[in-house]
């Protein structure tokens, strides 16, 4: 239920307050019972806002995330690789659209979210502001970036907001193809010529640390984590997920015959996990602020693509309007 009281006005309606209390108790009970909140249920404004922020950021990341790989479609080393890469980039567009429509159920239109992205006021994952200078980057993105995304996204399939959880189930099913195709690209290069092996190693060297930072700041510095965990939007903390990812990478890197560029990486018998080196959070924050290598390029490209598509959107709207008028006229004639 929406409040009709202007902001700042005294809340002096006991009936409304009572209704609010009941709604809030119902919301708390659903969350406590590990149930799902659905679009038309009452929910705290802060819960709605948090979800819109997270889901639109997630959707924007998928849309911007098409660019680093789109860069290599025309230069893929074989027709098969090209077809695979196109399918992967198309999936990313699809993931963006699943997430926008899930976010729309919270009352924010896709146009608003698109506008915020184009205006530069909405965020997307900072990982996509790194360049992709070699073909091996396609492998490293699939293996490391999509690998990290999967670790992050699997628990989101149990997120307390129904439409988000359902979109994530669909996305996770499709992501595992992305990760395996990346691994396969790296493995082929790693087993190829010395130059190809070095190219694969160079890409892993550049993407390793940024992919670890995809899980967000350490728990102690993460501003939204505790509340999101209480609401069961998040199920595990940033550091827990990062640890899970590192533990997964070590044997996979061995299988690839590549090394991970981390002096602090060693098995910790006591913890039963791999320790890893400190990450450069100053770099992470700088890229978020817009100082990454490709921030300006990614946004400029997105804006251009949106503007270039304007005539198509307008033409489709005009055609639909014309057809609707014709249909209406036809119905009038047949009714007469």
């Amino acid at each position: 239920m929406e409040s009709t009281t202007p902001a700042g006005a005294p809340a002096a309606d006991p009936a409304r307050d009572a209704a609010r209390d009941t709604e809030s108790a119902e919301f708390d009970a659903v969350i406590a019972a590990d149930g799902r909140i659905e679009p038309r249920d009452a929910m705290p404004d802060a819960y709605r806002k948090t979800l819109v922020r997270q889901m639109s950021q997630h959707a924007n990341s998928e849309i911007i995330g098409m660019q680093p790989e789109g860069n290599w479609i025309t230069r893929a080393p074989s027709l098969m690789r090209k077809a695979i890469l196109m399918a992967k980039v198309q999936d990313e567009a699809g993931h963006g659209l699943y997430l926008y429509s899930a976010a729309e159920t919270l009352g924010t239109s896709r146009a608003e979210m698109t506008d915020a992205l184009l205006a530069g006021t909405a965020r997307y994952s900072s990982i996509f502001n790194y360049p992709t200078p070699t073909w091996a980057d396609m492998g490293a993105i699939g293996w490391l970036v999509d690998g990290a995304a999967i670790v992050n996204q699997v628990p989101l399939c149990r997120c307390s907001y129904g439409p988000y959880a359902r979109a994530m189930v669909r996305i996770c099913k499709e992501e595992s193809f992305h990760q395996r195709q990346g691994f396969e690209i790296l493995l082929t290069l790693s087993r190829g010529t010395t130059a190809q092996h070095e190219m694969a190693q160079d890409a892993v060297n550049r993407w390793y640390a940024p992919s670890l930072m995809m899980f967000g700041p350490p728990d102690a510095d993460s501003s939204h984590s505790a509340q999101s965990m209480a609401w069961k939007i998040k199920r595990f903390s940033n550091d827990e997920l990062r640890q899970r990812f590192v533990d997964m990478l070590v044997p996979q890197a061995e299988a690839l015959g590549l090394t991970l560029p981390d002096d602090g990486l060693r098995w910790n018998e006591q913890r039963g996990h791999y320790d890893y080196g400190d990450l450069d959070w100053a770099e992470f924050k700088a890229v978020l602020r817009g100082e990454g290598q490709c921030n300006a390029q990614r946004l400029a490209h997105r804006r251009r693509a949106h503007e270039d598509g304007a005539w198509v959107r307008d033409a489709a709207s005009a055609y639909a309007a014309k057809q609707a008028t014709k249909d209406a006229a036809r119905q009038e004639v047949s009714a007469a």
Partner: protein
Amino acid sequence: MSGSIGDGGAPARSVVPEKAWPLWEVFIRPSRGLSHTHAGSLHAADATMAIANARDLYTRRAEGVSIWVVRSADLVASSPDEKDALFDPAGDKIYRYPTFFTASEGVPGL
């Protein structure tokens, strides 16, 4: 209770610019013999485009053999506020389940 629906029931309060394409709900039949199931929603200028977009968006991996689309604004949904009044009458009629009847236990074929 009618209202604009997204993913099975969004609040009808999004401000859609006039030129924006309307929202459609997509239902997919996964294979012959099964019902159409809600898959999600998308934007399209008209029904033909909604079907084409649904094909690209929701059936990239042979997830369906048939697609329904309906304008979200045309869906009518029950309101969460009416949940009790609507569904409570079914709650206390345990005799609608076969497990209510125990006298036939042990009798073959029942």
